[in-house]
């Protein structure tokens, strides 16, 4: 039985359409600067991408999860291959001109494969976790999912695209959690990252090692697990400084600027300072749609992609921000509900992974505009201009709509 359009999950479709409309309006406004640039008419292109996305979502809506599950390994393999290809022949773009994030064919920039690879990773993880009857219980059980995420993660890190890499990690943890992995195991699994983050202060790192030791004694995992977790944390403490040195200067600067934007207000801190000025000067009701002076005078960097949210903050004020955040919250909660009601583990995991991916994008993007999180340069779903990411979001929404339809067909209508 093929799903029909009028049987679509109205709440999800409604919130997505609302977000897309809001986002398009913001993008239109972002182009209304005193000195016109290419951004002025970019909303035309975004409109075309939205149409493409609608078609893609509709196609996914018609695609059975079983077929999707079957096709998953191929999709994953293709994604990894394309990422490898990107690394070999990729080009930079926009503010990160020296990175290799784009596939370019004859001068035409086709897209950023990393965005679609996120979806492939979600599918692959969902397939693997669904095939297991039991949730991962030991670190050894986490090896395979780690490889699934690790390969594209490594390829993306090498581009380098730190923002997307963080999304991969978030997806991994979100889906492991949804599959029923115990929180303590996830903590042990993630502990080396904490060890790395704390390694910059010897005291903090020492305290963490002691705490970890106590937790290991309490949880009593396998001896080899405990030893390897401990070892990994100690190694992190050792490699932290060389690792820091290996980071590209702009990555170091972003982290430093996060801690104190005023260190270098003209260069590294510029983005954060200008973004906060735009948001803060908006006040409660904002300066009026398309009227924001920070945006008009091009003080906002990348105002059509990574920093589109300050345009909303400046022109529509706190009210506009709260509306946008509410729409994002509703979108995420809708996806969570669909994941809960899904008829099978694969579908459920897929939708939860999608929710995790979108939410990570939202948190990271909005968080960096108010200096709550370091700048990583990832797009805001349905707002930022960008074909690949919009396509990935549309495909994801299509999958979620199909899962919602399936669960409704099996009698999970109004529970």
């Amino acid at each position, binding site marked *: 039985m093929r799903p029909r359009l009028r049987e679509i999950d109205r709440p999800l479709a409604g919130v997505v359409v609302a977000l897309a409309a809001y986002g398009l309006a913001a993008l239109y406004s972002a182009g209304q600067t*005193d*000195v016109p640039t290419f951004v002025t008419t970019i909303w035309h292109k975004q409109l075309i991408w939205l149409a493409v996305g609608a078609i893609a979502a509709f196609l996914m809506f018609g695609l059975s999860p079983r077929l999707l599950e079957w096709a998953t390994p191929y999709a994953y393999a293709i994604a990894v291959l394309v990422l490898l290809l990107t690394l070999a022949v990729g080009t930079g773009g926009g503010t990160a001109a020296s990175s290799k994030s784009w596939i370019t064919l004859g001068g035409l920039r086709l897209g950023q494969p990393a965005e679609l690879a996120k979806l492939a990773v979600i599918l692959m993880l969902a397939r693997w976790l669904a095939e297991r*009857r*039991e*949730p991962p219980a030991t670190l050894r059980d986490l090896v395979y999912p780690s490889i699934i995420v690790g390969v594209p993660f490594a390829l993306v890190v090498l581009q380098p695209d730190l923002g997307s890499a963080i999304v991969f990690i978030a997806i991994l943890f979100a889906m492991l*959690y*949804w*599959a*029923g992995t115990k929180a303590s195991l996830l903590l042990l699994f993630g502990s080396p990252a904490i060890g790395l983050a704390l390694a910059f202060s010897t005291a903090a790192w020492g305290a963490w090692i002691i705490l970890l030791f106590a937790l290991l004694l309490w949880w009593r995992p396998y001896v080899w697990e405990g030893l390897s977790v401990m070892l990994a944390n100690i190694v992190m403490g050792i490699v932290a400084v060389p690792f820091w040195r290996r980071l590209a200067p702009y990555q170091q600067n972003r982290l430093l600027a996060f801690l104190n934007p005023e260190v270098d207000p*003209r260069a590294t801190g510029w983005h954060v300072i*200008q973004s*906060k*000025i*735009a*948001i*803060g*000067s*908006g*006040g*409660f009701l904002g300066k009026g749609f398309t009227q924001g*002076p*920070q945006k008009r*005078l*091009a*003080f906002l960097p990348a105002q059509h992609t990574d920093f589109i949210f300050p345009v909303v*903050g400046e022109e529509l*004020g*706190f009210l506009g*921000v*709260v509306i946008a*955040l*509410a729409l*994002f*919250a509703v979108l*995420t*909660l809708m996806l*969570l*509900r669909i*994941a*809960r009601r899904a008829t099978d*583990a694969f579908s*459920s995991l897929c939708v*939860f992974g999608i*929710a995790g991916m979108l*939410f990570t994008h939202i*948190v990271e993007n*909005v*968080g960096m505009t*108010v200096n*709550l999180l370091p700048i990583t340069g990832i797009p805001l779903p349905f707002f930022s201009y960008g074909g690949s990411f919009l396509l990935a979001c549309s495909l994801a929404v299509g999958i979620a709509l199909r899962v919602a339809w399936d669960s409704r067909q099996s009698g999970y209508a109004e529970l």
Partner: protein
Amino acid sequence: MSSFHPHLLDRRLRVARAVVWLVIGVFVVVFFRTQILEHGKYRLQSELNRLRPIPLPAPRGLIMDRNGKVLAENVPGYTVSLLPGDEDSLRATLRRLAPLVKLDSAELTRVLLRHSRAPYLPVTVLTNAKFELVSALQERRVIFPGLLIQPEPKRHYPDSSLVAHLIGYVGEVTEAERGQRRFTGVRLGGVVGKDGLERQYDDSLRGADGMRFVEVSALGRVVREAGAASTLLPVAGQPLRTTIDLDLQRYVAQIFPAGQRGALLALNPNTGEILALYSSPGFDPNAFVGGIDPGAWRRLNESESHPLFDRSIQARYPPGSTWKLAVAAIALKRGLVTFRSHMPIPCRGGLQYGTRFFRCWSAQGHGDLALADAIAQSCDVYFYQLGLKIGLSSLLEEANRIGFHTRTGVDLPGEITPEFPAGTEYYDRAYGPRRWTSAVTLNLAIGQGENAQTLVNMVRFYQMLASDGRARAPFLVHPASNTDVTLGLSPDQLAGLRQAMISVVERGTARGAGRFGGTITIAGKTGTAQNPHGPAHGWFIAFAPADKPEIVAGAIIEFAREGPFVAPLVTRVIGHYLGVDTTIASHMRIVLPTDTAPRPMPILPGLPTEDTTVTDTSHADTTRTDTTGATPTPRNR
């Protein structure tokens, strides 16, 4: 599929929802803080971000002569500046500008230095830009973000070098000057008076700069004049009316012997108003407007003739015979002599005093003279004895009282104090107690010795003679607080001194129309200052009409050989002022004594004549720029 049991899923769903709500809640709180609580701060930053202040320079006040003729005015000029941005983009823009504006690397460095001092103000690249350059830049302004060309009033001196020392000049305020109290409130890069009246009355001439705001984009391009922010209009400086008679000043410049170094000062003896003040050589004050070219500056400073130096107030010369009247006035005031008094020893070409022979300028001798004749003949022997009669301490005391040791307080910057002993302790300090003799009195009595006066100070002394005996501080705009210094002479005594001076000049007759029926009587005194570096400096100070003086004028000309050389210049100036037809001024016959002072006598007994310390001050003391050289060794002529 136990891990996907609905019960377990519900538990995880609750945690996931809680995470979502928590994160969104944190965001709402953070945005509330940023947009509502800190709104004011960020709105201000947003304004600062996009509004750039641009100073609107105030036009300086006009400077006019006593009849309202303009000495210093403002003409439209163009200033090229760049709106501030970060230093790299500024450098890049400057590099692109350099071929058009013709900036060399030194100037580029200066521009960047200016930027680093005031990073939020437009940085001036070029003041005083030519119109062709301005239009060339306007055509290409697309490639120069932040280029700002604004009309700016520019100082102009129509009579240029003629009034240079009087008016001074203007220039960009320096870092050091900005620290001074008189220049507080001057913005960086502002224009202030550097010398002359421009400096003296800078406070009122300067006015107050205005400010306007432009809205700029992140790249520093001017997007529009900001309508929202109010423009602060500049307040023009106060006009300055001076006592100068521009017509007379021009005449002085015209007849001042070309190529000669010296100065001429004319004032109204009854008020102290300066009518003309001229120092030669001059310079072009217009060259300083908008920054003087370093080469020209070096030439001005290294020139042997020191054109920047105002010789009327900044140079000291031994007064020579012009000072004899001071000795006469002091003796008269003390009641030691009358005009008919004779001295015990008649002039035989010199005076034997102790073991030394002090010569008179006239080797033949003047014979037995009364005071009036002694002044007319400028007899040194008479004045040697008069000096001894007054006594050194009385002479010094009276001379100090009259003001030979103090500045006149003329309202021009840089007036120097005359060199004159404040008392006999001066000699104790200079030579040691009891190591000097009354011979110093003899030197002093004829205007030699430790005595070097500025032209303005000498002219003020003659002003006292020309008026009722009271000193009036010479001034150009406002008189200095008046002192009650008087000569202390009776009207008869003053008249007698004038009469003696008339005999000096004899009769200057000038034919032609004039208020005095074509004839004026000029009273004056010549002087010749010994100069160890060459020909002597010549003095002449005179006033007219002698019975009721309206003008007193004095001149010093360096290396003029003798005072009489200077006299025609001064008399012609006086004649011009009094309306005598000066086209036939050469008809004015002036017979003057050639009273070249004898070389100064050594004071220290037993020391060789080439004693350096004794006559240290007997040459023009122009140590400030050292006009006459550094070695103060007197030489026999």
